């Protein structure tokens, strides 16, 4: 290797410069992953505040005003700060190694797209300490609550969202450019690992919808500061227009979050089944179908807004269709396991939990697609439970699985398997204690984003809060296990790490050198 990265031994100055100016995909991947974990802890802390307040009926710890800021910030930080950067981090680390490329196609832009993120979140969270407080209108920021009726700090929120959007777009362009141009000779599209496929499709979704989000917040900015009335009925605008624009971004956004998770699970399950992924090409087509459908179903978030019945019917039918390609994926994962030779290391445990709990969230999603029933579910805890099953047990579980799966390759040390399994079981049980009762709460009539509730909801809320603290505790264990592995884990230099692992990244030495595939590998 020509030169290695600066380490602490070279002095703090050089060490810090390395991370600030780095154009190395592995360094940037690491930065993304640590940043996202920091955001995950922060968003988690907000969730703990929410659950502590909801532990009992009545306002005990915080006021409704701050409660609304917490629900809003929890959503924004988790979606834009924790989950999305986590998968971008994985993409940075893994895509070049998986397609036999030396680095990302646009390394300097890669650096930029990461380093503007901390500023975006510094701007966003600083509002919590300002007069008027942080954003308090929900992560969906429906106008006019987020325009005419918002605190002045909403302008910081808008600026923050713009920066995040720019970061995401740059990250996606980079991934598209890398995959299109930098595959090793012989690495045809239909030979790419599924993680790469899901990310390319995700990147196209991002490039398509982040500008729509930017448009929505710009229109808000105009309404608030420059006297326009896009979303103000009194000036001839329409608050419902905001929802259409938001969800035209928002629905693809939820698939942006889940598709890379599909990719991760599609790498891990074959490894621990010691058997190739079943139905590779149908997996690719199913992913593309889900991505396409994500553009044409947005108004199922708006069934109660008073759309004409033709609109309701169309969006209901289109939404139900999503079950078909999603079902294909689930069946493929299970058939991959069928007649395999299964072992249950931590990444596999998280992946299996992903399949079960994500599918469960898919079932409630199917129920939600039925407009007449959605009139009862809409904006209740049933919806909260649904999207936490797909976001937490979906995206977060698969992210955790990914870290355990590839961490030994990245740092050349094994994590503590027992601790990993303990973490898994605490997280799995805690998660279900938290969110399963929320289905009951929602069906019994508890709306979401409620700072306080009637006595009839007291019991399940208490159970849910206890589960949440448990799940939160599991994350501390996760952090501890990762740090312990990097610092003091048992060294390993087995390139494959896992007996059943297949793919180019496992042909590289362990730990992965700073520069890899300077000459492209030969693909059979």
């Amino acid at each position: 290797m020509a030169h290695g990265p600066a380490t602490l031994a070279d002095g703090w100055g050089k060490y810090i410069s390395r991370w600030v100016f780095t154009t190395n995909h592995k360094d940037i991947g690491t930065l993304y992953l640590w940043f996202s974990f920091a955001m995950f802890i922060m968003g988690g802390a907000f969730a703990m505040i929410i659950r502590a307040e909801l532990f009992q009926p009545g306002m005990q710890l915080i006021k409704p005003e701050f409660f609304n800021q917490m629900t809003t910030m929890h959503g924004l930080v988790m979606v834009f700060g924790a989950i999305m950067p986590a998968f971008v981090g994985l993409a940075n680390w893994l895509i070049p190694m998986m397609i036999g490329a030396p680095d990302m196609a646009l390394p300097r832009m890669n650096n930029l797209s990461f380093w503007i993120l901390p500023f975006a979140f510094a701007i966003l969270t600083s509002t919590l300490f300002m007069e008027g407080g942080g954003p308090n209108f929900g992560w969906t920021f429906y106008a006019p609550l987020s325009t005419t009726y918002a605190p002045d700090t909403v302008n910081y929120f808008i600026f923050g969202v713009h920066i995040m959007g720019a970061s995401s777009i740059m990250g996606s362009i980079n991934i598209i450019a890398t995959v299109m141009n930098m595959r090793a000779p012989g690495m045809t599209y239909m030979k790419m690992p599924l993680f790469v496929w899901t990310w390319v499709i995700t990147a196209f979704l991002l490039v398509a919808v982040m500008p729509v989000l930017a448009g929505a917040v710009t229109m808000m900015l105009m309404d608030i500061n420059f006297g326009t009335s896009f979303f103000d009925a009194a000036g001839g605008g329409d608050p419902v227009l905001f929802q259409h624009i938001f969800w035209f971004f928002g629905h693809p956004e939820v698939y942006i979050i889940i598709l890379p998770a599909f990719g991760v699970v599609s790498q891990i399950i074959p490894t621990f089944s010691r058997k190739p992924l079943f139905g590779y090409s149908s997996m690719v087509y199913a992913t593309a179908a889900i991505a396409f459908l994500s553009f044409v179903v947005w108004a199922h978030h708006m069934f109660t807004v008073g759309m004409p019945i033709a609109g309701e019917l169309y969006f209901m039918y289109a939404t139900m269709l999503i079950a078909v390609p999603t079902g294909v994926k689930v069946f493929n994962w299970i058939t991959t396991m069928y007649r395999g030779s299964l072992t249950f290391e931590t990444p596999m445990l998280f992946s299996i939990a992903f399949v079960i709990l994500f599918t469960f969230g898919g079932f409630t999603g199917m129920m939600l697609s039925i407009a007449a029933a959605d009139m009862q579910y809409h904006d209740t805890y049933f919806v909260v439970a649904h999207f936490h099953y797909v976001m937490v047990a979906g995206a977060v579980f698969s992210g955790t699985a990914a870290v355990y799966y590839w961490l030994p390759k990245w740092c050349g040390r094994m994590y503590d398997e027992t601790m990993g399994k303990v973490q898994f079981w605490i997280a799995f049980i805690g998660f279900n204690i938290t969110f399963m009762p929320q289905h009951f709460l929602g069906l019994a009539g508890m709306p979401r984003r409620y700072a306080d509730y009637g006595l009839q909801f007291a019991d399940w809320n208490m159970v849910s809060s206890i589960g949440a603290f448990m799940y939160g505790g599991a994350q501390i264990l996760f952090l501890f296990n990762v740090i312990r592995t990097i610092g003091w884990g048992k060294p390993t230099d087995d390139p494959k790490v896992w007996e059943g692992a297949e793919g180019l990244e496992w042909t590289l030495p362990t730990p992965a050198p700073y520069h890899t595939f300077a000459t492209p590998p030969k693909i059979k």
Partner: protein
Amino acid sequence: MLKRAQALFLRLLSPVIALAIAGNVSAESATRQLNMPQGVTEVSQAAYDIHMIMMWICTVIGVAVFGFMFYVMYAHRKSRGAVAANFHENHVVELIWTIVPALILIVMAIPATTALLKVYDTENADIDIKVTGYQWKWQYEYIGEGVKYMSELRTSQDEIYGRAPKGEHYLREVTEPLVIPTGKKVRFLITGNDVIHSWWVPDFGVKRDAVPGLFTAAWAKTDVPGTYVGECTELCGIGHAFMPVVVEVKEEADYNEWLAGKKAEAAEYASTIGKEWTFDELMVRGEEVYERSCAGCHQSDGNGITGVFPALKDSPIALGAKEGHIAVLIDGVAGTSMQSFADQLSEVDIAAVVHYERNAWGNDVGDITQPIDVLNYKQGQ
């Protein structure tokens, strides 16, 4: 200490216990409902039916899929000596599990469509009621009857903040419920005044967003008298959790009597408006109105919330001229969340609350604001 721990333990277990004694139909277990209510209208029944159909379909598919998965996880584990096969494709199976779910969906779409048509069947109503969402209360207007009133949370701030024990109907009680008769098709025309709210009565299967500048329609017809409680289901600011919906369904004769009473009330009110109120009468009524309509933002102690809702204690408006103070309530403050209360509070209530704000928490103006002052201001506009 041990007692407290024991009590906590029992509280934690109580949902489990409630499940165990679910057969026992006491009021207690009715509050621990787990499923969607069947409700009392055709629409709520339709929603419940399609919900149950979907749930059973999902349960059957779930049991089959997860059952197979658990079998695989048990039978094909390496520790039991399983050796991996090497197949990775089977077009026939893949085609089957694409087509079969699609067929199931098509079958499901039929009842789903029928149910939705029922929801949208808002024509030929007997009674029209306009429902307007305000931050944070509901206004009900019986179109063509000249009856219009606000319905606000009755639970006190003291109960919410734990300074008083919580009543049985905590957050489920309002000053005046919506009243509708049995056996009549009632159409709700729903809109919002400031931000978007959402009007939900689970037992009617009615949930519609209350969007400013837009009317949406929903309907209910029921034969079961009773009190039905619902909620606001669209985030609308700090009072979102504190604007319940309460609907009372009365037999037709009782409803007519009630409606006649409401009309008489309106006529009677017109005669009290000229009455001269005393300082203390106004303070008592003013405090009531303040707690209900103002304390959510400006807080019970008049200190507001820094940076969001201004303090009224020592505020130049409360200490300044009476007319200026009345103007804020009647006209609102443009570009802020201080809305106009002209349609929401009666002249008497506005006078009382202005009087209260000028003479409470150490604000010591000492003057008296009479309803006639408010009326004069309104007529002078």
